């Protein structure tokens, strides 16, 4: 039970409207977008409006010895916002102001609760772009996407969130406030804490202000769809495009299982006989886009595509990407539980990875649809199952283990963009070994010795 005095202190600090303590509200903070996770209800939810208020919350949490779980929109896929040990959920959604768009230094300063798309709508007025675009651009917060170091469809050419981070304001576990980085392109003063806190999943500090880099928005874009009757050919086409020194903004793949499901769901006219399709977009200056699109078309044909479609107008382009965006929801309709993985390999290993996933599906008799960001090696093998079926879930677990093992043996990583959270914490030794995990723990304990911030995620406390 919570101490009455603590609730009182929180209400005094934040205003009672911003402190939720009734069960009916708390129940709605027990989950995020991660499938098959046990729900856990927090004791209280607070929604501060400023850095100072966040700092006060952490001091109160320290006084009463409660854990603090930062939360943006709760769309992460690794259990990152589930309050495993109860305590306080700290919603950053009330800190939702865009503080500055600097068109001379090409930066924007935002509070963490700003929705990515809202920032993009604002900077678009100046002909600028903030490129990281996870599938959840219209819902995810800047704070959440920085904390997950989110990627997205444009990763191949534009990189991911960390490539746009220039600085941040942070509240540390004891309530102390620090500011790091700045508007200069060059900055080597001290350790790069901005990099450390990007992708830290709220386990090291609370981000209360974010300084990001912007780029000029590309003038034109063009989308293509390449159909393959053989996954290996599709894989070779990916390498061939890059070898021809074209870096598309987006280079996505969907396998046959995903294609069939998406077609069934969207009726977008996808070739359901195909073993794989590549969805490609090039962008930049108009002339360059025309040249690159023609080149990509040639390469696809040379690599044995049975069909290449070029989107003629915005409507056709939208149809292609609608199909891609529907991949996950469509797969999710097939079975009650969708286990979405995020293992990533160097792009040259994509065909091997796809083959391995198929073998794993076959071996454990599971339905696995694979789609993802082929251009940057980030695949999303998606296991369709039913969490109530204990026997099948045991097989799912084995399959997941094997997917990780293959990814790492191919020189890849456990997670490309969805984060470690609860879901993947136990696999860390696989990638770093014990010494690596020990290093993570030492960093965590140096900054947050009490495991106050998001406990149970990434670094598990030693018993």
């Amino acid at each position, binding site marked *: 039970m919570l101490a009455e005095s603590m609730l009182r202190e929180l209400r005094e600090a934040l205003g009672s409207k911003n402190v939720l303590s009734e069960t009916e509200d708390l129940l709605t903070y027990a989950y995020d*977008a991660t499938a098959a996770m046990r729900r856990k209800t927090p004791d209280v939810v607070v929604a501060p409006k400023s850095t100072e208020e966040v700092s006060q919350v952490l001091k109160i949490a320290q006084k009463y010895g409660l854990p603090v779980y930062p939360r943006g929109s709760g769309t992460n896929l690794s259990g990152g916002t589930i309050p495993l040990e109860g305590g306080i959920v700290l919603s950053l959604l009330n800190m939702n102001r865009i503080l500055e768009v600097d068109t001379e230094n090409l930066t924007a300063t935002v509070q963490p609760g700003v929705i990515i798309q809202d920032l993009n709508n604002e900077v678009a007025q100046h002909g600028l772009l903030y490129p990281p675009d996870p599938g959840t651009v219209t819902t995810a917060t800047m704070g959440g996407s920085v904390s997950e170091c989110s990627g997205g469809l444009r990763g191949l050419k534009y990189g991911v969130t960390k490539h746009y981070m220039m600085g941040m304001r942070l509240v540390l576990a004891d309530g102390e406030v620090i500011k790091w980085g700045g508007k200069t392109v060059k900055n080597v003063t001290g350790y790069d804490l901005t990099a450390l806190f990007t992708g830290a999943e709220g386990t090291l500090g609370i981000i209360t202000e974010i300084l990001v880099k912007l780029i000029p928005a590309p003038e034109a874009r063009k989308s293509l769809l390449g159909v393959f009757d053989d996954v290996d050919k599709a894989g070779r086409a990916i390498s061939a495009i890059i070898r021809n020194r074209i870096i598309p903004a987006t280079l996505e793949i969907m396998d046959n299982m995903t294609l069939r499901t998406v077609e069934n769901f969207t009726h977008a006219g996808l070739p359901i006989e195909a073993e794989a399709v590549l969805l490609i977009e090039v962008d930049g200056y108009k002339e360059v886009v025309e040249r690159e699109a023609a080149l990509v078309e040639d390469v696809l044909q040379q690599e044995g595509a049975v069909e290449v479609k070029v989107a003629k107008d915005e409507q056709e382009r939208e149809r292609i990407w609608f199909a891609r965006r529907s991949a996950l929801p469509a797969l999710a309709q097939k079975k009650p539980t969708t286990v979405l993985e995020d293992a990533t390999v160097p792009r040259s290993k994509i065909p091997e990875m796809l083959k391995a996933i198929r073998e794993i599906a076959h071996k454990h008799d599971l339905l696995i649809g694979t789609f993802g960001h082929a251009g940057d090696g980030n695949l999303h093998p998606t296991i369709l199952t039913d969490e109530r079926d204990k026997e099948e879930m045991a097989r799912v677990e084995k399959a997941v283990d094997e997917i990780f093992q293959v990814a790492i043996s191919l020189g890849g990583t456990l997670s490309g963009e969805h984060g470690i959270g609860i879901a993947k914490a136990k696999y860390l030794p696989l990638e770093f070994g014990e010494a690596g995990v020990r290093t993570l723990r030492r960093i965590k304990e140096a900054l947050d010795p009490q495991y106050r911030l998001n406990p149970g995620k990434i670094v598990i406390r030693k018993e």
Partner: protein
Amino acid sequence: MGIYSTLTSIEGELHKCMKCGNCQAVCPIYKETRHEVGVARGKISLVEALLSGETEMTEGLSERFSLCTTCMACNANCPCGVRFDQIILAARAEAVRQKGLHSGKAIAFGALKRQGLFDLGLKVGSVFQGVALKRIPGRKSGSRLRFEVGIGKTKVFPNLAKRTLRSELPEIIRPAGTAKMRVAFFTGCMINYFYTDMGKAVVEVLIENSLEVVIPNGQGCCGIPASVNGDVESARVMAKRNLREFENMGAEALVVACSSGGSAWKHVYAELLSDEPKWRALAEKWAEKSYDIAEFLVDRIPFKEEGLGRVERKVTYHDPCHLNRGQGIYAEPREILIKIPGLELIEMKEPGRCCGMAGSFSLIHPELSDQILERKIQDIAQTHTDTVATGCPACRLQLESGVENADLQEDVVHTVQILAESYRAGKLEPGV
């Protein structure tokens, strides 16, 4: 068993939800409160907790279920096709079964605190009681009704009509010459008691198009205010009464000029009566020939274009949620408007965004309703038009109040009123 009878009927819809959170992008309530319970995903998780036994139906829970304008924006944006409108109606019906009507403490308190509003709600809504309304002098609206809605704001209500529409008009109205068809007009409460000008415009336009109009005297409230708040029993009584009255008078088609009435006749009656085969069959028969007035004029008869006179208005059109997403009607009203000579249609930023009225929602949550309205009014102001057209008297009420409070010089009318105006102008123009 239908959604109004058991909560388990929507288990399939719950299973479809993968908790992606996409509904956050469009929910008008969530945009204001930023509390997870405001968004569809939050309320879905509460229904799940209820079904799994993790929680019981509490007053607090039924209060949370009232936090929804049923605008269906989440339905439209859900990648998994979750029918959240069905989920929320089933949840509210369950709340009433277990806790009784208006069990929520806040609901009762909120409404009782503003007794005037509550009475008005009842009057407009399901349980018409003939409570006398006091006239309160307003700022510039003369004798309009104004009510405190908390936060120092007032809501402006239209006056009760001196005579209700149905007492003013005969039950059967014939056009000059032979009628092409017999059309029944379901007026709905708001048009009958407040906006008789809208009802008259409907009749005027139908007559102008050589149609016979019948307005069955025995018709009553559509029942939607009861069914959306979970009072399924009252809603069933009203549905049956209306079906009986219209069946007695008979007509080839039925038209409505309000979005709840349209939803009622097209979808809700058959669903409400799904456990009674005879009634359901009757409801389905009428559903087939029920039309929104704009839909009827554009898709069913094509309305007469000769004789349309100039109407010098700059118009922006607000899409009522239950007409647009509920019945798929957004092109038809615009088609009518652009055919009117002299009229300029200027779209606002998000014409399909909820205005925050949502019937009794605006009485239970006046502050939220007002915040949602404010965004709408800003969008309207940016169009620099002089007229807001819409397809529902409830939206008109809300928008009129917002426009008045923002001191905008903007007429708020039903599309069909502008059409009637155009026919009238046509008669005065030489040589048309």
